[in-house]
């Protein structure tokens, strides 16, 4: 090992990267997330290559394999088996992962942006604006978002993208804004801000180089954990399938449960598990990154073993 560098030699971002790499939760979460990312994009590729000679059989919603009885367990033809209607579960799952991914991305982006703008502006302008924003945040936190989305999905207007955006708006105005505001207020009280000001740092420089680095990791923690809630909400909206049939992982769980009751077949475990574990593992990947991040940015967890 090389000689350790003095603390002032290590740049902030490099230090953060090293700490993240050492955190097992973050690494596991990122690995899991990349597996799912590959799965979400693999569907057209599979259609073009492995399934190309029997494409109709593997079509996600209308496919049916006439050669075997359904539901069937994993086999060479169907890696994850088939569901009670004879559709290939791997095809259904990779197809259904796409809207789920879209929700995750939409929530992360909108919650991040809204939270950052609302929180930092409240901390920056203070005064009456700050008080109004704080009360809005307090109110939004009291709302149960899953229930509002159940109401909204009744109309059938909410696609995965819209659901993600609106959920992100809630998360951003609520918990994310609270965390970012508190964090930004704390950072702006620090002496190095005064120091930067006294040597002539412009407000823009101070915000981009001092406030944002202090705020961003905390924002990421909140945003990622709100993705978990959004994924489960979306799964449930699909599960209930109120009003409009949209295809997603929640449908897999719903199909497995209802067809078992309706057709009297055995439980289609592979369908059930593919749907439920798809939602749950993807959500837990986000949660792992979030909670690993929380540990990594805690200054008290810096290397100091007694």
């Amino acid at each position, binding site marked *: 090992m090389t000689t350790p560098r003095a603390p002032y030699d290590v740049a902030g971002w490099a230090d953060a990267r090293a700490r993240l790499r050492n955190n*097992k*939760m973050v690494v596991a979460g990122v690995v899991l997330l990349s597996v799912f990312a590959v799965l979400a994009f693999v569907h057209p590729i599979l259609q073009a290559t492995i399934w190309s000679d029997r494409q109709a059989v593997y079509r996600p919603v209308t496919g049916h394999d006439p050669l075997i009885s359904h539901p069937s367990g994993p086999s060479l033809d169907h890696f994850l088996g088939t569901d009670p209607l004879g559709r290939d579960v791997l095809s259904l799952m990779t197809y259904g992962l796409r809207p789920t991914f879209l929700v995750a991305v939409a929530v992360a982006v909108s919650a991040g942006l809204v939270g950052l703008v609302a929180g930092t502006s409240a901390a920056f302008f203070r005064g009456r604006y700050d008080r109004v924003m704080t*009360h*809005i945040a*307090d*109110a*939004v*936190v*009291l*709302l*149960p*978002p*899953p*229930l*509002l989305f*159940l*109401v*909204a999905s*009744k*109309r*059938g207007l909410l696609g995965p993208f819209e659901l993600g955006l609106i959920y992100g708006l809630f998360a951003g105005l609520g918990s994310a804004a609270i965390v970012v505001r508190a964090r930004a207020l704390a950072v702006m009280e620090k002496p190095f801000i005064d120091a930067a000001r006294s040597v002539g740092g412009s407000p823009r420089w101070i915000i981009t180089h001092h406030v944002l680095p202090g705020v961003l990791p905390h924002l990421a923690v909140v945003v990622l954990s709100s993705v*978990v*809630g959004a*994924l*489960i909400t979306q*799964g*449930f909206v699909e*599960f*209930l399938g*109120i*009003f409009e049939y949209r295809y997603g992982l*929640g449908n897999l*769980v*719903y199909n497995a*449960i209802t067809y078992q009751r309706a057709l009297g077949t055995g*439980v289609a475990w592979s369908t*059930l598990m593919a*749907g*439920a574990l798809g*939602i*749950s*593992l993807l*959500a*837990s990947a986000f*949660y*792992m990154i979030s*909670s690993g991040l*929380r*540990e990594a940015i*805690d200054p*008290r*967890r810096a290397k*100091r*073993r*007694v």
Partner: protein
Amino acid sequence: MVRFAARRVVWGLITLLLVVTFAFFAINLLLPYDFAVVQGGQRYRVAEQIRVELGLDRPLWVQWLDYMWHFVRGDLGQSFDGSRVWSHLWAVLPATVTLFAVGGIIAYLLGEWFGRLVAWSRSRILGATSSTVSVLFYSAFPPWLVFVLLYFGANRLYGVRSWFGMGPVGGPMPLGPVVGVLAVGLPVAFIAGIVLRSWARRHQRRVLGLLAIPVGLGGLVVGLLASGVWAEAINRLLWPGAVVAAVALILIAFGESMLVMRAGLTAEMTEDYVFTARAKGVPERLIRDRHVAVNATLPVISRLFTSVPYLLGGLVIIESAAGTPGLGSLFLASIEMGDVPIILGIIAVIGLIGLVMRLALDAVQAAIDPRVRTDGGRP
């Protein structure tokens, strides 16, 4: 202090009004059709007449003013089918609140105890497995969890019930048994657990101390068995749908409280006062329980308290998946009917519970943590 508390309460109520206003407009704009259409069907005249009767022909802001005017006087208005919204809520709230209280407390106690254990043991395997398992619990898809629990557990539960001679249960839990559970059963369980634990600690019997939670639960059952009303309560609590919903809630909330407790404890473990305590020879167990855990529980409690609305929303999902009568089934049925006042009432009640929880949290924090206390008006 009194002024401070009063200020918080007043601002909290204003926040609640904001919540209700938002929910009012969101739901009225989002629901695709109103009750008049459901009742009147294709007959346009009839639908129009119903709409006039219900006051739905007025502009939305007039309806809002009307609703708020009733709301500030504690009246949630009239359901579209003519009955009071409060009567609908009273029919199901006791069952849901009991489920939530029992499940939440058990999940919190288990999570705190287990998180403490895991954080303190330096075993890597234990740490990795426990965090994996609790992350999976936390992010489990509720309908799936409920289905698996019902599939593997419900039949056996029916067997146990018939063995004890318990009859079938219809409808949600009435108010009497709920008061029994919340006002008598839980305190008895709590006191039994605490007495046993302190006795075990004084007499250096560690094994007995571990029995505190089971004995507390036993105390709950014995306390409930003591009277006829409470036999009814047990009958309701042991209904497979209710048990499955409770277990699902416990598993999901346990994952969260354990992870937060563990993270809090690990963060506190490197503080200087731990070093000092070790240096003066305090036993490890005492450092853990009396020094570190005391400091680490406050964030856990505050986090659980603030996630009450989220957990209640989750419980609605769980209940409807488990098919047990409660807030969940009422909510879904109201969505199906387009019954806006009931949906609004449910959201307002969840907001109210969340608000009360947050005010209670403020009080608890001010009482426990001297750093939080402020004399001025600053929150």
